[in-house]
């Protein structure tokens, strides 16, 4: 994309958000059509639960509608939406882990062993090829063992296909920091995957 095209797109996006802020439903629908898959897919890979990913998508679009006036156009619309999605997904993950910790604590006092919560269900991403589903599930489980920053960098670049620069802008860090996060993410992923290696269990 040339500089002029980039500026035109930013101006169009700012205009679109102005229309949304003024209550234009057609503008909101066109924004939804453009970004719903981006938001849903990012949230789905983060949360690994279709129902919760839809809830996050809802929250993200409600937030966009509410804060449309506040969009300053300094970053691209897509970056702004990625940021909202990531923040909402991280908030949900933290809430879920608090809930799990509480449930485990309650289970310490419970007599019923069956009440123990199985926190690693099979995750079936609808976009993964059928022959890769099992391996992709293992990869997603290993992804959950990374730090929030490493996971975000990995999802943005490897799954959403952003460039290092775009991911850096989304995460509000330098391109070098993104590169180093991805390197560490790859190393840690391999370490985690070693634990999953089937022959090791035998």
């Amino acid at each position, binding site marked *: 994309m040339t500089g002029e095209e980039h500026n035109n797109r930013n101006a169009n996006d700012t205009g679109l958000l102005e229309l949304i802020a003024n209550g234009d439903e057609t503008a909101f629908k066109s924004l939804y059509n453009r970004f719903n898959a981006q938001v*849903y*897919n990012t949230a789905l890979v983060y949360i690994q639960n279709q129902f919760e990913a839809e809830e996050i998508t809802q929250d993200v679009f409600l937030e966009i509608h509410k804060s449309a006036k506040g969009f300053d156009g300094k970053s691209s619309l897509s970056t702004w939406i990625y940021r909202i999605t990531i923040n909402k997904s991280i908030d949900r993950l933290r809430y879920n882990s608090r809930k799990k910790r509480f449930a485990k604590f309650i289970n310490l006092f419970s007599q019923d062993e069956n009440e123990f919560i199985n926190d690693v269900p099979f995750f079936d991403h609808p976009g*993964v*090829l059928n022959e890769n589903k099992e391996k992709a599930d293992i990869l997603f489980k290993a992804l959950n063992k990374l730090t929030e920053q490493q996971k975000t960098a990995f999802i943005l670049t490897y799954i959403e296909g952003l460039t290092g620069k775009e991911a850096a802008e989304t995460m509000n860090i330098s391109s070098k920091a993104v590169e180093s996060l991805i390197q560490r993410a790859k190393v840690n992923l391999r370490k985690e*995957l070693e634990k999953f290696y089937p022959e090791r269990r035998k």
Partner: protein
Amino acid sequence: MKKNQWIDEVVSSIKGMKRAKPDSLLYTQIQNKLRTEARTLFIPKFKVGITFAGFIILCLLNLYVIFSSSDKSENIVKTKSTIDFFPQQLY
């Protein structure tokens, strides 16, 4: 060696992965939420002002009643104690 090959296969299992799309009814749900939020959140400023002023007046009236009644009861106690002190003067 086999292990490394397996890890590489796992890492590349997301290659060619397509973006997942949400349920087609999700947009309608978002619109409904926006409408209900708009309905519940919009309260005219003057209504909020009137309610607040009413609440303040009610509080002031309550305070007035409480303090004026406590003054009266103090007066009654004082009069009663004077009568108790000089009971013969009444006859």
